[in-house]
């Protein structure tokens, strides 16, 4: 193994361990009875929050790469996305188990009657195909373009997840608004460089060679 390969592996190991800290925190909190009067609520909500956090961190990887030129965000992007799915799964499990105790009739009613549950469940379902195809084999099988199109669904997941959070809170939507703001920045960053790309394309087709060359650099 040469040093070139070692570096990304070290980074990946670091991110992997760091990503497990929230889970460890809640496990330790339950073990030591340190989560307050309603520990199940704290764990359920905490796992939901960390799903959102990982979704937004994952969505930040590509813009970070684009605007800084750093390559490391792309090295860890897949792992971050899979951790978003991992926390989403745990979050869903706490709901199915500790909130509903696997009362499937009540769960079914919840999904159809309560918009915030509908949005949350939709987010999880849409994350499944993304998680399943987060490997080199799936990319080869689907082809890069189709794979990319499929994985653009993560934008929708981000929107649905924050919507789920917004519809859940009782009166104080200040925290959901923070998530909306970050999501808006991350999604519009993509919109911005798409527009730039289109403009470059136009310049290339026109006679402004120098401008087009400058454009390419971005």
């Amino acid at each position, binding site marked *: 193994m040469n040093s070139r390969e070692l570096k990304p592996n070290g980074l990946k190991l670091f991110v992997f361990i760091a990503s497990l800290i929230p889970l460890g925190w809640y496990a330790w909190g339950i073990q030591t009875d340190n989560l*307050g009067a309603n520990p199940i609520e704290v764990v359920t909500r905490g796992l939901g929050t960390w799903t959102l956090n990982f979704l937004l961190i994952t969505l930040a990887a590509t813009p970070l790469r684009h605007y800084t030129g750093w390559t490391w965000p792309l090295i860890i992007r897949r792992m971050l996305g899979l951790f978003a799915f991992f926390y989403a799964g745990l979050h869903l499990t706490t709901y199915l188990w500790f909130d509903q105790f696997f009362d499937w009739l009540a769960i079914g009613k919840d999904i159809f009657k309560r918009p*915030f549950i509908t949005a949350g469940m939709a987010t999880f379902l849409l994350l499944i195909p993304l998680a399943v195809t987060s490997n080199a084999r799936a990319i080869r099988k689907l082809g890069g373009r189709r794979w990319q199109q499929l994985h653009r669904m993560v934008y929708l997941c981000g929107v649905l997840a924050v919507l789920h959070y917004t519809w859940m809170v009782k*009166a104080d939507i200040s925290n959901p608004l923070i998530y909306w703001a970050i999501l808006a920045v991350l999604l519009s960053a993509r919109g911005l460089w798409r527009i730039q790309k289109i403009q470059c394309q136009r310049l290339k087709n026109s006679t402004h060679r120098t401008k087009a060359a400058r454009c390419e650099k971005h």
Partner: protein
Amino acid sequence: MHILKKPHIPPSEITPQVVYTRRRNFLQLSAGLVIAGLLPEAQAKLGPGKASVFSTAETLTSLKNVTSYNNFYEFGTAKEDPAEYAHTLRTKPWTVSIEGLVKRPRTLGMEDILKLAPLEERIYRLRCVEGWSMVIPWLGFPLASLLRQAEPLGSAKYVEFITALQPDTMPGIRRGVLDWPYTEGLRLDEAMHPLTIMAAGLYGDILPNQNGAPLRLVVPWKYGFKSGKSVVKIRFTDREPRTTWMKSSPSEYGFYSNVNPAVDHPRWSQANERRIGEFFKRKTLLFNGYADQVAQLYTGLDLRKYF
């Protein structure tokens, strides 16, 4: 009049005296020990209160949980915010004014209010609209004995409760989460019902600030938000008051807000509840288990429409 009728309590609900005195002694001792460590020595103890037939024999929620898991949005919207920030609330001096459709509008000081009626210990279930519940040993007296002081007029049909607004001590009100001051309301017969109390204490001692010091409403068959904290004004009206939560979200919070497992909150089910300290959920009971005492208040009323 039905509110004067003796409530029917099934014998199974009545705790034998030996049991409750033993429990009471233990609780007083333990609560006393805990609170003694928390409060300055000058604070006089309020309890013990007279035992009440309305008290439940269910296991009490711990003092720690009762005082650290609160909704008191004036001090922030997180459950732990009130315990952290409510210490600044000024509770002395405290007056409650009673006005509106009354013969004798008056303003009473806290000292006089406490002399109106002997303090009773009322161990009540508390069911929050969010789906959790507690069992709390309140120290209080029937609201009726306070309301009678002002001699309500025959035209009075409703009672509005206005709670404290102290912008300098309440960090939560700087944010427009709700329309302050926090306001609640009851129908007159609900307010006069013997189960409805003004609490000045819990666990045998004065109310901690986060629980609504120095005087709060407790209406055990309604969702917790109906029981306004730190009440400063009581107003008799002939029209149904618009409460803070009704203004905030009229489709989600009705005037009655009686605990009812059959009427869901639009965004979540009310069929079950998690009793704080328990793992499994319990079935929520109609009128929070006080149907025998209060169901007759709502005879003929469509509880779905008047939720």
